[in-house]
Structure formats: structure tokens, C-alpha cells
């Protein structure tokens, strides 16, 4: 499964990566391993990055903003055509789930390393995807939409079952949301919800869904070849989130029994199979404390956290994407997919956890990535580079693999400790505090874990000894201070603060 395939018969010899940062580097690594030509497009803001240095060819693209240039499909396709790229890998984000781009790529006679436009379209629409999955017989969270039939809304809501969550249809930001644990109170809560919705949003219509207490986010990696072959590559647990973004992902999930694992993974594979899925994809579930799980959405692209899956299965997911795009069949069965050990990914963000995870910027004056057995560093930044506010603040991913979860946590702590990045504040210290938390160590986390434990993000009080050491290091590195000290003649320095 991880053997290097013969690419001589492939319809493309060059792959253009329509992305930047660590994922561009990640894709280029496999592209170049296969002996294919790796091409990247880049905005001027990314000129000095690793992806641009690594690529066999780099083509500058422009746009009103750096991000806009990576969203400019026409320009990217033109670059692909000009450079002779036979395939485009979209990475994640940007154009990776853009049906129009996918179509335009294929219309230009270039392979899109991803699913079909139809699959993007279906899974890109949350409501359609949910309905499709529900109809196909897979579990989705019970819900009721008032709009569907206002007359029966209360009845339908009752069927959703307790606890349930009532939200204003027009709402957002948690305003007007009500949790109902006792169905006898349902009607009066709906009345209140309507009036609140009307007051806040000028619209009293409601939506209700099963409320999952302290849910986990568990997702399953799937691979399909578009020829009807679909396998799952086990699950990933991504419950630790801040501001609705994952920051630590691991596999296997500490929440799953072998039976539940089999069930959730087969469910995911079944969903993918039901649409004849092509490409690597991820089926995301919301997972309740009773072991119940519901389809959330499917991401029809390579996932940020794909490396943890690669680490424990030995499967190069990018390589599989390329094979499928080249028209090959998977060539292996579900039973061939085996996992060993435990892997955790830490997203290294340029951000200040103590200040609401606000992004930070600055020069990368020193970068010493962690090293050692079981340590993988996926990053697009280089020493001498700069972290700007032009892009997402994720600057690297640290993936550690151990023989079990405790070993992986220990390796993670050591690797985070060894990660030296100076010039721009990152979240490494925060991540160390996070994985040292007893609940994390016990695997007992949920998507609201960090909100419930704000002390993890808070800057801890500096130990007196640490403060001394920092001041010493800083004083000894500051010329005006060192110069004054050095100017003192030897004898007087040796006498110190003598007074007669």
C-alpha cells in the first residue's frame, strides 16, 4: 500500500499544487518521491517559503490579497497549463472543495486530484448531505425544522427526544438557544424561543435538534477509487477544539471500543460507498457519551490531520490520492488496512492562547524543529521567514507516534518542549499544558473541553527562578547592558560592589 508505484503509465507527469504552506510541502514530498515534477503557485508573500524552494517549478500568482490569489482558479489553471502540469492537487481549504474549480480543471484537460464535481456538490451542501445520508439509512442527529411544517413543529420536536436544543432559525452566536431536558416543558420553551428569536432577530421561526452533552468529534478517513472500491482507514479523534477549530487530533480515539470502532468506521465507509466516492475523504461524526454517533458532514479532500492516520497505518494518503487520480484502482481490501501504535497531531499556531487565541505575527528568527524517533514535523515555514496575518495562523503540524497513547503523549510533550521557534509567539506552551491536563491524559475530552477549562489557556504565573533566568538571558543578550558591564576594568569588576 505504501510501495512506490510505477508512474510511467500515468496520464500526468507533473503535478501542480494549488496551495501553500505545510500542505504544499506535504504534497510535493510525495509527488517528488514518485519522480513526478512538482509545481507550486505562490503569492509574493510566500516567496521565501519552503514549498517554493522545494518545488521543481514555482509560478507566481497575484491577487488583490494574498488569499485571493490562491482562490483565483483561472490564474492557477493557466499556470498549470503553462507549466505542463497534468494534474492539480488542491490541498485543503482554498479551492479544494470548490465544484466550479474542479469542473474548470477537468474542462482544461487536467486531472483534479480529488472527488468528482458531483460529490463535491453533494457533500458541500450540509442540508442536502444530511438528507442524503439519512435516506441512505445512516445515523443523523434527529432534528425538526419549523419551516417544514409549522403546524406539526411541536410534535416533530417531541420526537427528536430529550435533551434537545431549540435554536432560532435566523440566529447565530448562541443567542436565543434553549436546552430542553424535560419534554413536558417543551411547549413553553418553544413559545419563549419564538419570542426571543423575534426580539433578537426579528424572526421567530425555530429549529430543533437532539442535544448531545459534551460531544466528541470523531471522524473516519476513507479512500475510494471511483471504481466502486472504498475502504476506511480508521478514525481520528478531534475533540479538542478552540474557536471551533481542531488543535489536537489523535488516532485511535480513546473513546471507542473495538465494536464501536468497527461500527463507526463501517458507517463512514458505507456513506462513501453509497456515493461511489473517489479520492481520500473524511466522514465526520458527532459522538455522544452513550456511544451514539451521528453524521455531521463529509470533507471531500485531504484533511489537515491526515498524518496521524498515515503514521499508524503506514499508508501515504497523498500517494493514494495520486494513484486514484491517475485512474488506478485501490488494489487492496479493507482487511489489508492495519493500524499499529498511537499518533497525535498538534497544530502549531502563531497565536496567543491567553488572549483568546488571537493570531500573532513576527519573524521566524530561529526555528529548530523537534527531532527524534516517532516525531514528524510538517511545516512550510523556514528560519528567516516571517509569519504574517495574510494567511491562517497554523504554521506547522507536529505529529508524534508512540506504541501506545501514554507513550505518544510523553513524546508529544518532549517534542513540544524541543520545538524552538523564536520571533513569533506560538501555542506550544499551551499545548503542553493541555496534554498535561488529567482529563486529556485520561482521554476524557469533548468539544467544549477548553471552554470549560479556561485555565489551560491562561498564562501561568512565572516562577521566580524562570523570571531570573529570562532576565539574565535577556540582559546578557542586550548590547547596551552588556557593553556597560564589559566596559568596567577587570579589577573593579572583580571587587564587585565594595564600599569602604
Amino acid at each position: 500500500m505504501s510501495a512506490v508505484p510505477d508512474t510511467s503509465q500515468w496520464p500526468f507527469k507533473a503535478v501542480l499544487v494549488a496551495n501553500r504552506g505545510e500542505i504544499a510541502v506535504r504534497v510535493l514530498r510525495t509527488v517528488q518521491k514518485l519522480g513526478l515534477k512538482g509545481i507550486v503557485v505562490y503569492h509574493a508573500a510566500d516567496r521565501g517559503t519552503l514549498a517554493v524552494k522545494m518545488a521543481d517549478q514555482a509560478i507566481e500568482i497575484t491577487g488583490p490579497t494574498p488569499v485571493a490569489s490562491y482562490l483565483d482558479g483561472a490564474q492557477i489553471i493557466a499556470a498549470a497549463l503553462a507549466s505542463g502540469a497534468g494534474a492539480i492537487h488542491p490541498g485543503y481549504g482554498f479551492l479544494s472543495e470548490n465544484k466550479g474549480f474542479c469542473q474548470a480543471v477537468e474542462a482544461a484537460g487536467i486531472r483534479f486530484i480529488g472527488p468528482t464535481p458531483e460529490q463535491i456538490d453533494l457533500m458541500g451542501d450540509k442540508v442536502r448531505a444530511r438528507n442524503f445520508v439519512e435516506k441512505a439509512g445512516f445515523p443523523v442527529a434527529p432534528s425538526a425544522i419549523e419551516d417544514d411544517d409549522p403546524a406539526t413543529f411541536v410534535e416533530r420536536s417531541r420526537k427528536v427526544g430529550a435533551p434537545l436544543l431549540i435554536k432560532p432559525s435566523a440566529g447565530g452566536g448562541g443567542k436565543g438557544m434553549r436546552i430542553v431536558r424535560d419534554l413536558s416543558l417543551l411547549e413553553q420553551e418553544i413559545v419563549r424561543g419564538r419570542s426571543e428569536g423575534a426580539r433578537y432577530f426579528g424572526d421567530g421561526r425555530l429549529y430543533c435538534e437532539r442535544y448531545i452533552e459534551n460531544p466528541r468529534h470523531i471522524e473516519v478517513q476513507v479512500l475510494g477509487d471511483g471504481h466502486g472500491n472504498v475502504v476506511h482507514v480508521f478514525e481520528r479523534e478531534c475533540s479538542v477544539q478552540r474557536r471551533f477549530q481542531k488543535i489536537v487530533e489523535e488516532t485511535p480515539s480513546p473513546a471507542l471500543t473495538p465494536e464501536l470502532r468497527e461500527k463507526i468506521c463501517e458507517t463512514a465507509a458505507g456513506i462513501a460507498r453509497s456515493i461511489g466516492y473517489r479520492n481520500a475523504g473524511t466522514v465526520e461524526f458527532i459522538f455522544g457519551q452513550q456511544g451514539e454517533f451521528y453524521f455531521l458532514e463529509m470533507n471531500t479532500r485531504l484533511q489537515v490531520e491526515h498524518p496521524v492516520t498515515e503514521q499508524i497505518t503506514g499508508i501515504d494518503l497523498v500517494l493514494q490520492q495520486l494513484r486514484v487520480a491517475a485512474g488506478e484502482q485501490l488494489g487492496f481490501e479493507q482487511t489489508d488496512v492495519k493500524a499499529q501504535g498511537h499518533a497525535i497531531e498538534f497544530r502549531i499556531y502563531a497565536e496567543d492562547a491567553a488572549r483568546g487565541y488571537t493570531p500573532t505575527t513576527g519573524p521566524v528568527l530561529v526555528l529548530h524543529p523537534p527531532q527524534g524517533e516517532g516525531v514528524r514535523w510538517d511545516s512550510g515555514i523556514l528560519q528567516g521567514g516571517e509569519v504574517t496575518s495574510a494567511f491562517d495562523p497554523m504554521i506547522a503540524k507536529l505529529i508524534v507516534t508512540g506504541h501506545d497513547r501514554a507513550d505518544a503523549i510523553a513524546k508529544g510533550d518532549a517534542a513540544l518542549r524541543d520545538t524552538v521557534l523564536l520571533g513569533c509567539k506560538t501555542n506550544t506552551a499551551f499545548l503542553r499544558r493541555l496534554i498535561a491536563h488529567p482529563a486529556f491524559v485520561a482521554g476524557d475530552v469533548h468539544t467544549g473541553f477548553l471552554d470549560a477549562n479556561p485555565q489551560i489557556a491562561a498564562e501561568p504565573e512565572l516562577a521566580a527562578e524562570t523570571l531570573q533566568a529570562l532576565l539574565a538571558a535577556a540582559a546578557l543578550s542586550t548590547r547596551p547592558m552588556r557593553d556597560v558591564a564589559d566596559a568596567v576594568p577587570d579589577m573593579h569588576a572583580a571587587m564587585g560592589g565594595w564600599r569602604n
Partner: protein
Amino acid sequence: MQHAFKLGEAEHNNALSRSANAYRLHFGEQVIDVDLKTGADGRAWLTVGERHHEVVIATRGDDVFVHFDGEAYQLRYRHPLDRLAAAAGGSAEDHIRAPMPGSIVSVSVKPGDAVTKGQTLLVMESMKMETTITAPRDGVVAVVTYEKAQTFDRDALLLSLEPNQ
């Protein structure tokens, strides 16, 4: 203890001196033997009292970045002259006088206005050159002597700030 580093919100006064073999950090009432030996790759050995730590240090302007005990910290150096001038609040001139004879092109403030350091107070013209007069410190405008188009002599008081406190 005239030197200072800002670490987070806190400012720490300290000083450095040289000892017979290395250095001493003066911090509050404490005097601690310290030393720093830097290797080729930017890694360094920091000695603090009896303890040794491997650290990585980078500087940029007045910022000192230190990777210590598995964490990165940022300290900002404040030179005593900057710090004390700011603390005194008025080392910069409170009375802004004309550096040369000229006339007023425009006045941007009036008495009672709160101004921040560097803010344009007025523009004067002299010897066919326009000069912008900016606030030497944060403060409140006390007096504006001239109006637009009026002329003045060298050393004429153009504007003054309310004294601090």
C-alpha cells in the same frame, strides 16, 4: 537598576555587572551570578546562580526572544533614557518655541485638546520650507499662541502643553 525589560504586562528593572569570571544580574535586592556562552547554532548555555540551562536566544531590535525550559518568551528592552524620559513625562519640551522665524500654515489643535506624542500640532513655514511641529509627549495643550498666517520670530512660544500632574 535603570535598565528594564517588559515581559508580558510587567516591567522588570534590572542591571548587569561583570564579576571576576562572568557576570552578575542585579534584580531587586538580589545579585545573582550569571553567564551566557553561545554556540555556533544559536544554542547557548545560561548559568544562573548554581544552575545551568540550555537556551536559545534571538534578538531583533529591542526584542529578546528566549527559549527556556521548553517555552519561548519575549522580552522587550527599555533603555533607561527612554524609560526615564517617559516616566518624567516632560523631558521633552513642554514649551514649543519657534526654531526659526516664519509664519503659521495651519494649526491642528486648540487649548484643552489631549494630544499624543508625535501628533501634529501645527505646521509652520519658514525659509520656503514647511515644518510640522509634533507633540513631544502625551499631554494636554495649554496655550496656542498664533493663528493661521500669523508670523513670529525665532524662539517665539508657539504652543505649550499643560505641565504633567
